[in-house]
């Protein structure tokens, strides 16, 4: 492999990153090649010592997505960070993906529950059609309105809780990546 091939592969693998960041990284490696040449190393030798451009790009990509997740605490960016981290090691499947799916599933189910609560008064209204006793129907409506209130509160609580969970999971992911890489 020649220097240009290495640089091109690296650039292609860094497609998730914004162009400015990508070019900054590329220029670091170009500088590396130039310094190595000064020291009398051949391109082949330098590339062998640098390692696989795919592996290098995966590290940059995982770091980038993690940085984004830390900055905006949103589920989409956390999801991207989780999937980028999967490329770094097989055991991340168990240590990251499984808890991630569990946590997201749990949060999602509570959202569904709060939605269902909010919709129950509609059922009570519809029940007027077949409920013979008006008093009973009004009682049902009353109960379901309380449920709807509880559902709205749950929803508001979930909004805050899920933000906290996303933040917490981002930190967990960061700690996990540090351990995997052993922080030289």
């Amino acid at each position, binding site marked *: 492999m020649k220097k240009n091939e290495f640089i091109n592969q690296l650039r292609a693998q860094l497609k998730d990153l914004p162009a400015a960041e990508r070019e900054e*990284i590329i220029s*670091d*490696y170009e*500088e*590396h090649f*130039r*310094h*190595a040449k*000064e020291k009398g190393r051949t391109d082949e030798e330098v590339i062998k*010592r*640098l*390692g*696989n*451009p795919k*592996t*290098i790009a995966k*590290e*940059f990509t995982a*770091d980038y997505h993690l*940085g984004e997740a830390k900055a905006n605490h949103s589920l989409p960016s956390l999801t991207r960070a989780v999937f980028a981290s999967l490329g770094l090691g097989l055991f991340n499947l168990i240590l990251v993906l499984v808890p991630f799916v569990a946590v997201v599933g749990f949060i999602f189910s509570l959202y569904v529950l709060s939605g269902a609560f909010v919709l129950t008064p509609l059922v009570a209204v519809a029940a007027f059609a077949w409920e013979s006793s008006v008093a009973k129907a009004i009682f049902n409506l009353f109960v379901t309105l309380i449920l709807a209130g509880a559902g709205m509160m749950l929803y508001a609580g979930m909004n805050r809780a899920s933000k906290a969970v996303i933040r917490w999971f981002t930190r967990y992911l960061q700690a996990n990546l540090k351990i995997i*890489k052993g*922080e*030289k």
Partner: protein
Amino acid sequence: MCVMVLTSSKDRYGYELVDRISEKFMIAEGTIYPLLRRLTKEGYFTTYLVESQEGPPRKYYQLTEDGNKYLKELVEEWKMFSRAVDQIIEEGLQLEKE
């Protein structure tokens, strides 16, 4: 930790750091740059470019105050860890002799 120790006495440029680390450890040199970038993003390093007459421009890494604090923590942790490992090795080898 090692890249931070190397920059604590004086600023160094990327290639120099990579060269020194790979003298001591068997690692793919290419993976040091992601580490340097991450530490820079986390505010432990600042970088600046210097044009040099002999050869290509150099991107220097300078340890920040935060970086210095973090380095001290890491070194303390490392000392504790390595003392513990040393002890276990010594005790283990003594038992072997008996």
